[in-house]
């Protein structure tokens, strides 16, 4: 059989190539160029070599922001993944209530980041917010603008509220794809609820859970808008995560060189973690394939 060769199809990729070039490749190249130079504005640049990278690697400020960022992502994953699975396991499998649940679960996902931030910023205020005022009336000291712990709890709870449903929906999709025969077999073997979860549901959900972990990790690792709106990185630097610190450095202080060096290291870290996740995911699929 002769295979038809039609190279014209390559032209259909061109629009995407141009889009990616202008939205990702060219800005990234510019950041690399900035990272080895110094500028005081007016498009005038001075060669600085690796100075900014050295500065950033020795900067306590960056390591502290990275520490806070990793802690935040770890907390987020530790809460959202088990909670999402728990919610998915308890959602109705079919009927009207299944649809109602699905709609309710997807609502927080549809709200823009800055709106979520504003909702929680007002919700938590001691003077007019329902949550802040109630806690204050109950005698529980809660002020996210002054207390580090309160600020962290607010930011974490906000993220859990916003994104747990994504994990729940993904886990639910994984659960729905398990044929009834598996459950019937488990019933015949008189398997306990825990064993059904451990040996049927969890392995069948592994693929979508990896996607959920990857998405939640990346998203929490790059979080900017919500904590910026709620706490503005405060009190002090308590909730200044990597991206907030980066924006402060690049736009607040106009330190383009250090900020560019910082961005490249941030980008490389994300690239490395994404690659590890991607590799693990594709290899999981490959191992599951032949069964």
């Amino acid at each position, binding site marked *: 059989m002769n295979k038809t060769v039609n190279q014209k199809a390559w032209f259909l990729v061109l629009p995407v190539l141009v889009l990616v070039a202008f939205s990702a490749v060219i800005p990234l190249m510019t950041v690399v*160029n900035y990272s080895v130079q110094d500028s005081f504005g007016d498009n005038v640049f001075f060669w600085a070599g690796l100075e900014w990278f050295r500065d950033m690697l020795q900067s306590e400020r960056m390591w502290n922001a990275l520490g806070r960022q990793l802690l935040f992502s770890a907390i987020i994953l530790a809460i959202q993944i088990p909670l999402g699975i728990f919610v998915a396991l308890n959602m109705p499998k079919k009927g009207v209530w299944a649809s109602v649940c699905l709609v309710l679960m997807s609502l927080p996902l549809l709200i823009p980041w800055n709106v979520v931030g504003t909702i929680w910023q007002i919700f938590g205020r001691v003077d007019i917010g329902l949550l802040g005022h109630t806690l204050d009336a109950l005698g529980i000291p809660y002020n996210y603008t002054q207390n580090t712990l309160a600020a962290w709890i607010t930011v974490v709870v906000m993220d859990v509220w916003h994104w747990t449903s994504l994990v729940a929906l993904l886990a639910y999709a994984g659960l729905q794809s398990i044929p009834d025969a598996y459950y019937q077999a488990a019933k015949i073997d008189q398997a306990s609820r825990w064993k059904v979860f451990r040996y049927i549901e969890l392995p069948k959900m592994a693929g979508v859970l990896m996607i959920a972990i990857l998405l939640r990790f990346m998203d929490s690792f790059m979080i900017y808008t919500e904590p910026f709106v709620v706490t503005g990185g405060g009190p002090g630097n308590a909730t200044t995560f990597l991206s907030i610190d980066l924006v402060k450095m690049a736009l607040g202080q106009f330190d383009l060189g250090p900020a560019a060096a910082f961005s490249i290291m941030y980008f490389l870290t994300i*690239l490395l973690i994404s690659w590890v996740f991607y590799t693990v995911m594709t290899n999981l699929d490959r191992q599951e394939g032949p069964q």
Partner: protein
Amino acid sequence: MLDWMAWTWPTAAFFAVIAGLLVTMTVLAIKYPETPRVGILRIETTRGDRLFITLLGSAFINLIWLGLEIGPQPYALIACLAYAVAVFRYV
């Protein structure tokens, strides 16, 4: 356009080398197609994958070299080259 991108010769050379590597890899892939293989990481890799692992690893080798002040920066390239050979041979 090139003005606002603030190009310098070293960064231009850096990107030219990466572009050159990508073009070489594409030509190689067309001329000598290959099947993926499984190396010491026990993951399937093609030449392109190994190039990616090499480039990403080299970036971190350079950062570690700079951060720990191991020596003059150009020498980090020797470590990167050794790493590249190891990746293309064993991964």
